[in-house]
């Protein structure tokens, strides 16, 4: 069983943290991962930076631009992660836009991920049908989960379709927005989370976008299995560097 699935079975609200590889420093990747594991984060999304991250808001965009300026490349990220499994066992997901993966070669990319011990991928601009037709077999071959997103606008029919294609969790985007927007987790959001929760999907749902502190984390996970913090963490790194990761995480739970 894949580490992600194992962790999801643990019956605990999942805290997943996203960071951009190469940010704030080119070689921070491994130390951030270790520090997150040490602080009992449940899952990590390692962002492979892209020049044109069109689903991301300003914070993650800026971190991507900086990471690329710092010299981050796909190859380098893989080198940095080469030995990561010697020291951490936390589920690791690579989140990246499709083009850099395509240029690396999708099969080569999957192979490398498997070799390193990556557990899953989030490729926001890889459409479900293209995945299903061309890459699903490949992903299973390398025991990589592919995580899909749903939003408040996703139709029930499509959610069921995505659920059928998914085999880890569903990334439930909290509202129609790019990353990093401050959004409420009020009644509207709860109704949405409840609605999804009541669909009895085979995959658990983890909420992403807009979670930035304990209260939003709690609100987001009331009806969902966990939540992902991205921009808020990047912001923390940009102001405090990597030293105070512990306190950032402790403030969440």
């Amino acid at each position, binding site marked *: 069983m894949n580490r992600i699935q194992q962790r999801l079975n643990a019956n605990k609200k999942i805290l997943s943290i996203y960071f951009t590889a190469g940010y704030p420093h080119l070689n921070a990747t491994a130390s951030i991962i270790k520090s997150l594991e040490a602080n009992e984060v449940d899952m990590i999304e390692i962002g492979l930076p892209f*020049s044109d991250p*069109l689903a991301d808001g300003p914070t993650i*965009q800026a971190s991507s631009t900086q990471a690329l300026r710092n010299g981050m490349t796909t190859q380098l990220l893989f080198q940095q992660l080469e030995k990561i499994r010697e020291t951490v066992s936390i589920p690791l997901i690579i989140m990246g836009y499709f083009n*850099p993966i395509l*240029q690396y070669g999708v099969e080569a990319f999957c192979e490398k991920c498997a070799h390193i011990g990556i557990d899953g991928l989030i490729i926001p*601009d890889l*459409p479900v049908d293209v995945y299903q037709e061309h890459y699903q077999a490949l992903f299973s071959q390398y025991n990589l989960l592919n995580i899909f997103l749903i939003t408040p606008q996703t139709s029930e029919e499509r959610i069921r379709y995505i659920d059928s294609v998914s085999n880890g969790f569903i990334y439930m985007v909290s509202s129609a927005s790019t990353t990093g927007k401050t959004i409420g987790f009020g009644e509207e959001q709860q109704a949405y989370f409840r609605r999804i929760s009541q669909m009895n999907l085979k995959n658990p749902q983890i909420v992403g976008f807009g979670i930035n502190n304990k209260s939003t984390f709690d609100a987001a996970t009331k009806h969902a299995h966990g939540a992902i913090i991205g921009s808020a963490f990047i912001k923390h790194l940009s102001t405090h560097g990597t030293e105070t990761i512990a306190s950032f995480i402790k403030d969440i739970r």
Partner: protein
Amino acid sequence: MSYTINNKGYYGEFGGAYIPEMLYPNVEELRQNYLKIMSEKGFQKEFNQLLKDYVGRPSPLYLAKRLSEQYQTKIYLKREDLNHTGAHKINNTIGQILMAKRLGKKRIIAETGAGQHGVATATVCALMGIECIVYMGEIDIARQAPNVARMKMLGATVIPATSGSKTLKDATNEAIRDWINNPVNTHYIIGSVVGPHPYPDMVARFQSVISEEIKNQLMVHEGVEKPNYIIACVGGGSNAAGAYYHFLNDLEVKLIAVEAAGHGIESGESAATSVLGKEGIIHGSKTLLMQTQDGQITEPYSISAGLDYPGVGPMHAHLYKSGRAEFISITDDEAMKSGMKLCQLEGIIPAIESAHALAAFDKKTFQSQDIVVVSLSGRGDKDLETYIKYFDL
């Protein structure tokens, strides 16, 4: 082989809709409705009426006598420069605003580089009384001040794109982000045959009026329906797509696509996607694009803001890969020279984009009996500053 789109939204291996799930409902709504709406009698009537009375179509097909003499072949210019707002872009924005109205949208967003598409979009929004937001790179805002003023006069809000290289590519990203944030009431009017399916096909269809008219007009002028060659510049590729459209599957009509070589193919400052690009994904579409080995999209360069785009539409990627169209690259200097030549021989100041298409005559020899149609995609008024600086006028 077919050169039109297939039912999955691809031209050969290019196209598709590589979009985040947040955009899926919007794009899917459009995909399911666009052909149906476009084929409605009421839509067609309104579209054609506006093209005629508002845009000023048909645009003339003008036999350029002195240019023809110079190059010893028969050159017709398809005069998109005479359209309202000065380029072919308005054909598409008229179509899309009518589409948006029928989809019940209350808010329009658009990206723009040089500002031509932004002006064309602001124009149709003013015409229909619909809110309009145009994203434009911060750098482009500074260097295209007159078009920014135009958009403002037309009531549009121009929002600077401050990410990345702060030019067209980033403005497009920002527009997409806006759409993600406003998925219900907003329609995104893309300005070329790029973006996720169905955009490339929809835009090509709106622009196809160009080749439809060419057919009819050639019949009147020459007693034949088809030219030997059609030449068009390619930024994203919409004027070319429109000029080629009804001839795509007629192999007797040779298609020439002209890209911007900037300071030269080898210079590192260029926008010649067919030569320098590789297959990849940009703005939701699988196509050819200029990128690093690592898959990061690179900044293009051309003196012509409208050709300064690191990709081409998927139709053009397919026309290139299949050999259906011949691709030519033209440097800044070659384009400027050809632009000036058209001024002095025919009294027409072309957009610098269109001047690239004209420069093909210096690269390729035609027979004296050949009928060569050039898509004169826009007028050079917007480019005066550049011409003045370049030629020190």
